[in-house]
Each structure stands twice: as C-alpha cells, then as structure tokens.
C-alpha cells in the first residue's frame, strides 16, 4: 500500500473515468502488485525469460517456414510469415511501443480467425475448387503421370531382397537380389543393370543370399533408412536397349517393370500419351486453365484418370448461383423460412427467458436459487446430445411425446409440424441464455421506478410495458440482434433435429422444409453432387451479406434507444 501512495504516473491509457469509491481499494491493490511485477521485468531473470520466449517464438516461426517450403507452398507464404515474424520481433525487442505490444496478439487473432477465413472464402468463391478440382496444377500433372504406370504384358516379375554396401550404410551403393520365379533365374540388380547369379558368386546361408559382389543383404531397418533411394532405384533390364524397360520396386519384397505412358510437355503445356512399344506420341491433351482439366481435343471433355486442379474461374460460380434453376428454385422458400426460424427463435426465447426472469425476480417465490440453477441445465448440456434426444422423443411411432400425448402427432415428418418442432427445440436450447441475460438486466432497473409507477396507478402490464421493456431493451437489444444473427446460421439446431427434412415435394434439387440457408449450403457443398466448395462459398457469402445488412440496420435502430437512456 505504501508503494501505491508513492504516486505512480498515469498509465498509457490515460486517467480512467472516476469510478465509485469501492474501486479505489481495487486500484490500490493493482498498484501494489505492479511492484513485484515490474521488478521481475527489470530483473535479470525477467530479461532472460523474455528473451527465451522470443527465441522460442522465432524458432517456431522458422520451423513453420521450413515446413511450408518443404510442403511446396508458394513462395509468398513463407516470405510473408518471415516478414510478420520480423515485424513482431521488432515490436517486442525494443523499448517503447507499449500499446502495440498489447495489440499485436489480438491483431494476430483477428487476422487469423476472422480476416483470413473470410478472405479465403471470398477467394474460393472465385475458383472451381471442388472434389474434381481438388489439387494444385503441379500435383495434377504429377498424379496424371504417376497413375499412367504400365507393366508390359510379358515383362518379368521378381521377388527381391534389398542389398547395401556394408561399409557405408548411409551413402553406399544399393542393389537388389532378384529372383525370377517363373524362369527360375537369379540376378544381382544395380543401377547399371542385371548380373546373372553365376557371375557374382553369391554367398548363401540357410537358402538365402546374404552377400554378393561387395553387397550385403540389408537388414530391414537399414533398408528403411534408405527408403527413398530404394524407391528411386531403376534397374535397366538391358542397359543397351532402352525399350526393354526398367525394373522398380513395387513393395520391399517385389519388383517389376513399369513405366509411365503419359508425360508432361512443358512447351505445349500438355500431357502427352506415349506408346511404350514404339515410343511414339499417341495423343496430346492440352491443359485448359479456365476449367482446370487436361482436355481431350477430340471430345472437348476432360481425360479420365487425371484429376483436375484448382483454378480462377472469375464470376462463374456467382452467375451459376443466381441463374441455375437447381439453386435458385428453392432459394426463396429457404430464405423466407430462415427469417421465420431466426426471428421466431429469437422472440420466443426472449419472451420465455424474460417471463421466467420476472417470475424468479419476485421475492415471494421460495427456493429461487435452486430453480434458477435448474433452468440453466438446457444451456449446460451439449447441443448435439440433447438434439438427438429430442429427435428420439419426437419420433412419431416410438417417441415418448406421442406415448404421453393423445394421437399420433407427426412431429418431424409433416412440413408444418417439423417447422414447429425445430423452433420448439431451439426454444429449449436458447431460453436459459435469455433468462440469464434478462435476469441480470432486471437487477439494474431501479426499484423506485416501480414504486413510483405503482403510486401513479400502473398495473403489472403497464409497468412491464412502460418501465421494464424500454429499460431492458437498452441493454438487451444488441444481444437480441446477436441471437438473431446466430440463429440465422444455427446449423446444429436444424441438422441434428430434422436434417432439413421433410423434403419439399417436387423441388428442383434435394431440399427440405426445415432447411435454413446454412444447412442448404451444406447440402450444396457436401451433399448431392458431392463437394462443390466454390459454389458453397458463394452461398455462404450471400448469407453473410444478409446477416450483415440486417445487423447494420438494426444497430441504427437501437442507437436512439441508448441515447434515451443517457
């Protein structure tokens, strides 16, 4: 305390607003703590900790850059990471720049978890990214060649044993002991070719060749360490005649002749189909960078067996989203239902939450604390569990609800009932939150206002309308808005309870009566048609724009409310 009395200068945030007296003791405690904290910072240990943390940071960043490069990321990615790292180190290394030191972590999170995904979604929306266009251009070429491996019909097959020069396991030459079981012949195979067993005097132990020509049978562990070399080992059947082909390992115990029938021609930017027997070109498949496929010029279609790559396709996805009958058809219906679902969910949870809050705010009720705790339960249980339980309870034939209630209510199978049911379940999920919020807000309404109203002759309804609601909305309007936006995108409530079902009869594309925009987006991206991420990004962005516009208008609307209060 005495240190605090020493009169510290104002922090960088400037003198704060004068708080109520009770906060002064808190401030004093803070100041007392600054003492040990700052002494720690200045101590040798503090500097060491700081430098160690920075060093660890740099090391991690370097490790990431190395990994990026090794994964073949485009050069700007490691460069950007490096620059960002340098910038961050600069911020933290020197003295001063204190505000920045506090802002940087927050900014980093903002960039990583808000701006990056958003920017990436926008980028995807302009590409053809989908299951068929999943790879990069380079990966596409690589796969196209790798999958064209062919083994000539009468080519020999060998069961093999890896061999290594024993005196230099890491760098020495490697070879294979090869047994052609069909012709009962054995060879030593190296990059120079095959040598028949008779020429190399193999040493045989227990029926297995263990040594030949300075090579020794490699233990599997040793072979493992040279895995890449063995993978790349090519043994020409006849070094003088290239057309006989090369032997390569299929597994660590088998080898055969196989060669790619496709090659990439950089000049023509095309895959070339080669006849292995004659070495002549059979066909040329040029790359179509607008579509992300290698094209067969005869048919104009992509060639089979070569995966496509991601490429920039401009506004195609946007045009499709707004013109394609399969998407546009049900879009309006889904949109209307999304508004109804989000609006009803928000209003009903608010009404129920507020009703309960007012009830339990009443001091006449006994055991209020217990009731309040019980009310939080739906909020505390994991959604995906309770949603499935609700789904089971609402089963028409076997559900507990229809066991209790008379008649067979089609909770989840009739369009209107299903819409009612998801709103009901969502009400169960959402009201405890609203209860918590409104209960807190109620406490801040001065009790004397109610007394004055009572004196003026206002009944309970009058007090609710004229005092509680206006004052409550000041604090809860932003929460209501956030709840609306949340429910607008409340994928879980729909997906887990109804899965969007029941289906809309006669729709242009599979879609259900309870599908909201986000679950509809999911169907486009992962359901029928299988994985069109570009198109799904467009729908996601449109959804985002709608929520954003609503939010802006709503904030305009609630601002006057706040002014009233002030």
């Amino acid at each position, binding site marked *: 305390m005495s240190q605090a009395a020493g009169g510290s200068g104002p922090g960088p945030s400037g003198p704060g607003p004068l708080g109520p007296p009770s906060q002064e003791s808190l401030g004093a405690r803070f100041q007392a703590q600054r003492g040990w904290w700052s002494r720690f910072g200045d101590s040798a240990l503090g500097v060491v900790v700081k430098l160690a943390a920075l060093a660890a940071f740099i090391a991690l960043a370097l490790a990431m850059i190395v990994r990026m490069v090794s994964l073949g990321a485009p050069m700007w990615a490691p460069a950007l990471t490096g620059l960002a790292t340098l910038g961050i180190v600069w911020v933290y290394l020197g003295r001063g720049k204190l505000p920045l030191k506090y802002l940087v972590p927050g900014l980093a999170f903002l960039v990583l978890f808000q701006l990056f995904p958003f920017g990436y979604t926008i980028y995807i929306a302009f590409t053809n990214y989908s299951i068929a266009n999943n790879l*990069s251009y380079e990966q596409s070429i690589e796969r196209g060649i790798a999958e064209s491996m062919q083994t000539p019909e009468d080519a020999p097959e060998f069961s093999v044993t890896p061999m290594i020069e024993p005196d230099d396991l890491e760098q020495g030459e490697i070879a294979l002991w090869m047994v052609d079981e069909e012709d009962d012949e054995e060879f030593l195979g190296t990059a120079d070719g095959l040598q028949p067993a008779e020429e190399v005097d193999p040493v045989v132990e227990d029926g297995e060749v263990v040594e030949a020509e300075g090579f020794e049978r490699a233990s599997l562990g040793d072979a493992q360490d040279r895995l890449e070399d063995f993978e790349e080992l090519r043994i020409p059947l006849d070094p003088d005649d290239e057309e006989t082909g090369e032997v390569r390992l299929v597994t660590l115990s088998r080898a055969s002749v196989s060669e790619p029938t496709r090659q990439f021609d950089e000049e023509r930017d095309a895959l070339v189909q080669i006849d292995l027997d004659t070495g002549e070109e059979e066909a040329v498949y040029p790359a179509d960078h607008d579509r992300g496929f290698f094209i067969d010029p005869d048919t104009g279609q992509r060639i089979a067996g070569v995966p496509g790559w991601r490429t920039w396709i401009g506004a195609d996805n946007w045009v499709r989203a707004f013109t394609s009958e399969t998407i546009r058809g049900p879009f309006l219906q889904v949109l209307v239902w999304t508004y109804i679902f989000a609006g009803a969910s928000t209003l009903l949870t608010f009404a129920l939450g507020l009703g309960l809050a007012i009830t339990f705010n009443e001091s006449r009720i006994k055991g209020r604390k217990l009731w309040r705790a019980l009310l939080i339960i739906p909020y505390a249980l994991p959604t995906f569990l309770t949603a499935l339980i609700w789904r089971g309870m609402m089963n028409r034939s076997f559900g507990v609800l229809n066991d209790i209630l008379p008649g067979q209510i089609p909770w989840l199978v009739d369009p209107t009932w299903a819409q009612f049911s998801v709103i009901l379940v969502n009400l169960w999920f959402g009201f405890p939150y609203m209860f918590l919020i409104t209960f807190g807000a109620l406490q801040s309404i001065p009790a004397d206002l109610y007394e004055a109203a009572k004196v003026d002759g206002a009944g309970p309804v009058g007090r609710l309308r004229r005092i509680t609601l206006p004052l409550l909305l000041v604090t809860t309007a932003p929460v209501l808005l956030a709840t609306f936006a949340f429910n607008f995108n409340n994928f879980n409530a729909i997906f887990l309870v109804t899965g969007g079902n029941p289906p809309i009869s006669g729709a242009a594309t599979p879609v259900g009566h309870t599908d909201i925009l986000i679950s509809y987006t999911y169907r486009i991206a992962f359901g029928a048609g299988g994985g069109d991420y570009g198109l799904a990004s467009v729908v996601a962005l449109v959804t985002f724009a709608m929520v954003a516009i609503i939010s802006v208008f709503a904030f305009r609307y609630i601002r006057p409310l706040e002014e009233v209060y002030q």
Partner: protein
Amino acid sequence: MSAVLRAFALLVALLLLVAACEAEEDPDEVAEEPEPEEPEEEEEPEEEEPEEEEEPDEEEPEEIVREEADLVIWADDTRTPALEPFAEDFGDEEGVEVAVQEVPFDEIDERVIDSAPAGEGPDIFIGAHDWLGRLVDAGVVTSIDVSGIEDELVDVSVEAFTFDGAQYGLPYATENTGLIRNTELVPDAPETWDEVVEVGTQLQDDGEVELPLVLPTEPADPYHNYPFVTAYDGYVFGQEEDGTYDPTDLGIDSEGTIAAGEAMQGWIEDDFISADVSYDLMIDQFSSADAAFALTGPWALPDFDDADVEYEVDPFPEIEGGTPQPFVGVQGFMVSAFAESELLAETFLVDYMATQEAQLEMFDADPRPPAMESAFEEVADDPNIEGFGEAGIEGQPMPAIPEMDSVWEAWTDGYELIYEGEDPEEAFGTAAEQIRELIGE
C-alpha cells in the same frame, strides 16, 4: 490446415508471454519511477497457452491431423483395435514407426480428400469401394499392384476395387444385407415373401411382436431398400455387358423402381413395416423380440449377439417371382496418392494384411465375410456368414461411379415422400429429375 492453425495459435500464445514479460519494462515510466503498469491481466493469456495446445480430439472433430510417424493408417473404431497389433509387428520388424489413427468411418473419405494434398493425410486408409469414383476424381488415391496375390482374393472383391481399369485397393471384406429371422418366433425359414408377410402379420395380430419386419426407414435408406427395388426389376444405373454402370441410364423412375416404392408404401399402410424406425430402433426392436424379421447387414450382428436374441440369417425369398438382389459393398485398404512412402504402404498391405491371419483377425473385430478365399473358407461354416454369403450371391456391386454421389440424397428424399403417402411415380419422377440435373451440371 488445422496443423498450421494450431502452430499459429501456439505462436500467438508465445507472443502473449513475451508481452507479459515485456510490459513492465516500458521506458516512459521506468525512467522516473519503478512502478509501470499492467498486472494480473497478462497472466491469463499465459495460462491459455497449454489449453490451446491440448485441445482434446473428441470435442473438436476438426482436429484430426496426421500423426507423426513413418506410416500412418486411418481406420474406424471397430477396426482400429484389430489393426494395431499388425501395425506394431510391422513397425518392430521393419524398424519404422507406425501409427493407427481412429477416424469415424463416414468421415474418412472427405477427410482424405481435404487433407491428403496438403500432406496431412494418412498413407493407408480403410474405405468402401463405392468411394472410389470420388477419390479417383479428387486424385487422392493411388493404384496399387496386387497381381501377386490376386488369385487368393474373391473375384468380385478385386473387381469392385478396379476403377477405369486400375486396381486401387486391397479388398479385405465383402458385405451385403440379408434377412435376419428371430428363430424363437419363426423357427422355419419362409420360402417366399408372401410367407414372410403371412407369418409376420400373424405374430403381429397375436400380439407377439409390434412389427413383423424392421429395417432402417428414418431417415429413409435406399441402400437397405435395394433388394426390394431389384425384386421388382428396378435398378439405379443400367449395366453394360461387362458389369460396369452406365451413368446415362438412370433407373430411379423406371417402372420396377416405382413398383418397389408402391410395395413399400403398401407395407407401411398395412403396418407390416413402419416409417419411423431409425437404425438404433431397428436394433432395439429386433433385440427385444418386438420384431420377427430384420433387414440389415453383418455389422448389426454384434448388437444382436449382445442382446442374446436367437436368430438366423436367410437369403431373401422371392417377392412375386422376382429375386431380391442386395447391394454388395467391398471394404478394403487404399493407399493415398500423397503417401510419404508408397513403397512402405504397399509392403504393409501386401506382406502383412493380405494374409489369412490378418484377415481372420479383422473378421473377429468386425464380422464381415473376408475377401481372401482361404480366410473365407475358415469362417464359412459360420451359419451367419453362410446366410449373408447366399444372400450376396445374387447381389449387385454398389456403383462406384462418381455420378452415384448425386443419387443418394434425391433418392432418399423420394422414399421419405413415398413413406408419407406421396404417389411413388411422382416422388421418384422428381428424384430422377433432380439427379439428372445434378449429373448434368
């Protein structure tokens, strides 16, 4: 991607640590007096650091990231334990690190498509042959050479893993649905479908069972319904002479498929089946002898065994003269196109998994008939395996063409509407139009 994000999160956490140490050093104040600012607050982010890293996998399914090992295998929960001993043996013998990672079965394909090109996928993964179209399209699976062991595998399983003329995986088990009968309620296998209906309805009228037959209908399940479709001469895609499927010949609105829809609608009206049976309810109903028959596959048997219900597996009896043909699926191991070492992956599959011992071990974990002939013979005297085997003889391999992806959802919706009373011709007509539109796009 998530590995990168995780690293980023760690970076940021480290920054916060630096900030915490740094703050009190700020010069403006330090010069004059030893008490600058910022107490407690920064300790909090510091504490967050470990949280950020330890995020448990169960909570956040997004977090499945390739483990650090020379050979990484992705398998589902039932088969991971069976694979682990072989992975360990292989690792010990070959001096490499092998990791078996558990991934929910129905997520494996999507996850491989997503993560393999980024180098974060597995080397080997378990999958169903009907994923092939999609996986090949996405370029994430590589063909492997099984010519050395081809003769030891059941023909249909090798064919199923052949796509566009290339062999894409090592098949290890086949599966199809069959008719499972409660032997206490129905001692003798019915010879015709009429008998099934008769016996079942009698039991229902006597109050012995709630439902004569259970099969998953909520949500509707075209896979389980397929035997009915084929019994009425319906089909999904037309087949060429050599058995390959023709994507231009869609049979969802064919006469036979519609007739099957009409039949099912009639059974629902007669309370012979119910439109409200989920997979779990089917297990419950049959296990508690509240249903006389169940239409499902070998994957349900462990649950029935646990419940101590007496049952037998029968091939499907003829329905109005038509032979029900279930879809036959083949399970197998596939090698990622972006495997760190294809050589290692293929060595493991061909030398370790394509053995009778491994196939039997996998069979114990998950009773689907093995694809290796010698292993199949070993277990063939098991009456359940025999029953499913007989039911599958007439079966059709599930189409692996990518166009099949466009079928499931629309077809499911068609059934949903039929169950609720819509005219089957209209419901399947709409479904067929939706599918043609999707394939055309």
